[in-house]
């Protein structure tokens, strides 16, 4: 019994062989990804990084139930996903607040969708609690148009948290924000998620964001025919802080590993697949600080100083 629950907790989210195909313009089909396998444990914070077009957002939409996979299934907490559910809250890239509703109206809408029979007072009380949690006390009656970008995204986070989801799905939630706001929001999300043990599946473009927030970082190769190259276990201690994170021993090891992947290996992985690679069990890698980690293609010189954003820009 115990081992069964353990297994269940280890494969809290289990992506089992999903594929996403679109009809290609000239007939036939384009395969964005196929035979994708991944397991996420309960309470884990997982970030997916990869270049545009690798199907990250498709994976997230399939997890949310907004899209159906062309093949395969996703099992969450022992149940196959058949559509959107209140168990899986989505934080959208463009906040997606209802502009005709106030802050409390937006959060309350989610609360009343979860607890259909709750009284108005209960709904408002709960909505207020989550608005407080994301630091928006005093702004309850404002409309989204009166809020800054960061505040709107906070409302989106409050809305997602208020329904007590089993999983939070975030699609580049901070990409539209300025660096300062992004930093404070990352702090908030980390504080809330670590204190509640929330399971999170997040897509990001930002290597530093992934290192700061994630327990595990899933690396996806370029699409079409994208695959999960490996899962990087974040070696940094759980109680890392933003202002000291770059002094952690393994920080540069893991950062370089991720940047190397995005710069070089995301393109070449398919051709230089390591021996024994199994799509069903993507290798778990743990970059360590003391040894210079050179995971693959060591003969390829890689400019480690290129900052990630300029790489992303250059690629597009």
């Amino acid at each position: 019994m115990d081992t069964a629950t353990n297994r269940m907790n280890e494969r809290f989210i289990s992506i089992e062989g999903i594929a996403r195909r679109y009809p290609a313009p000239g007939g036939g089909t384009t395969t964005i990804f196929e035979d994708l396998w991944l397991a996420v444990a309960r309470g884990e914070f997982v970030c997916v990084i990869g270049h545009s077009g690798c199907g990250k957002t498709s994976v997230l939409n399939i997890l949310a139930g907004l899209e159906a996979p062309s093949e395969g299934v996703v099992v969450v907490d022992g149940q196959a996903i058949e559509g959107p559910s209140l168990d899986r809250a989505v934080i959208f890239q463009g906040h997606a607040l209802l502009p005709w509703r106030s802050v409390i109206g937006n959060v309350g809408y989610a609360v009343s969708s979860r607890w259909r029979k709750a009284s108005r007072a209960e709904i408002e009380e709960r909505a207020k609690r989550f608005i407080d949690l994301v630091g928006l006390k005093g702004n309850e009656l404002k409309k989204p148009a009166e809020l800054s970008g960061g505040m709107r995204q906070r409302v989106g986070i409050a809305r997602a948290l208020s329904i007590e989801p089993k999983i939070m799905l975030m699609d580049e939630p901070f990409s539209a924000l300025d660096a300062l706001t992004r930093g404070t929001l990352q702090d908030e999300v980390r504080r809330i998620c670590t204190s509640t043990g929330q399971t999170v599946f997040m897509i990001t473009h930002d290597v530093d964001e992934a290192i700061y927030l994630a327990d595990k970082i899933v690396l996806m190769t370029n699409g079409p025919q994208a695959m999960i190259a490996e899962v990087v276990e974040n070696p940094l201690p759980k109680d890392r802080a933003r202002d000291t994170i770059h002094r952690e021993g393994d920080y540069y090891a893991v950062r370089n590993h991720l940047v190397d992947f995005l710069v070089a290996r995301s393109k070449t992985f398919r051709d230089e697949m390591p021996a024994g690679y199994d799509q069903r069990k993507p290798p778990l890698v743990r970059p360590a600080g003391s040894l210079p980690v050179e995971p693959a293609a060591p003969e390829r010189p890689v400019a480690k100083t290129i900052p990630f954003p300029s790489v992303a820009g250059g690629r597009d």
Partner: protein
Amino acid sequence: MTKSLGLRAGILSVVLFVVLCAVWQIAVTPSASTGPALDPEYAKLMGISTAGAQSAMPGPLDVAGKLWDNLKRPFYDNGPNDKGLGLQLLYSIGRVAIGYALAVLVAVPIGFLIGMSPLAYRALDPFIQVLKPISPLAWMPLALYTIKDSSLSAIFVIFICSVWPMLINTAFGVGAVRKEWLNVARTLEVGPWRRAFTVILPAAAPTILTGMRISIGIAWLVIVAAEMLVGGTGIGYFVWNEWNNLSISNVIVGILLIGVVGMVLDLILARLQRRVTFPE
């Protein structure tokens, strides 16, 4: 700054109004030097004296006088051909209200369905495109023949002319609801009815109200023409009747009031529109 702009615009409006009235008054005042404008024989036939000949066109003062007469007792009823102006306006507004309300009841739900279903949109589009440009008055004979009641026919014409802008705008507004808002509703497992009323309707409301505003404008244009055709009661009939009476002053009073009521109707809809519009 805006206040002073409003003030200046107001002053300019008043000045323009005064200038317009003055020009009008001068244009209708007979010049003394040119002598009698009419042939005396003809004048006698018409029952007016040639001395101090008066233009048949009333001046602004005459119209103002007539307007005052009419406003003093708006609701008298001396039989079919002599009713107060207020009464006539109420008849017209009543017809518009009934026809328009029916059109809202039909156009908004059907537009909703059309907007939700791309299939229905495509299938019904040719019908709408053909029916929309038909002048509402062209329906009149058909309406009179089938309904056999002139007053109901007028209401039908109002209905048919208000239905299209609302139908098209509702369908468009509903079809254009942002996907991310619908996705929010989907992830919150909101049922179809609740979704229709809490997401789609508020999101499409500004577009729907735009259609309603266009419709009320058309309806008010059409009622005047329809009542001229149908006769009996209403402001359109009043104008036509006063033309038959050769009372140009009353015709002008009627025209002015048609304009004022049309403006008020538009203002009401504009206010409603502002209430449902949301900034993004």
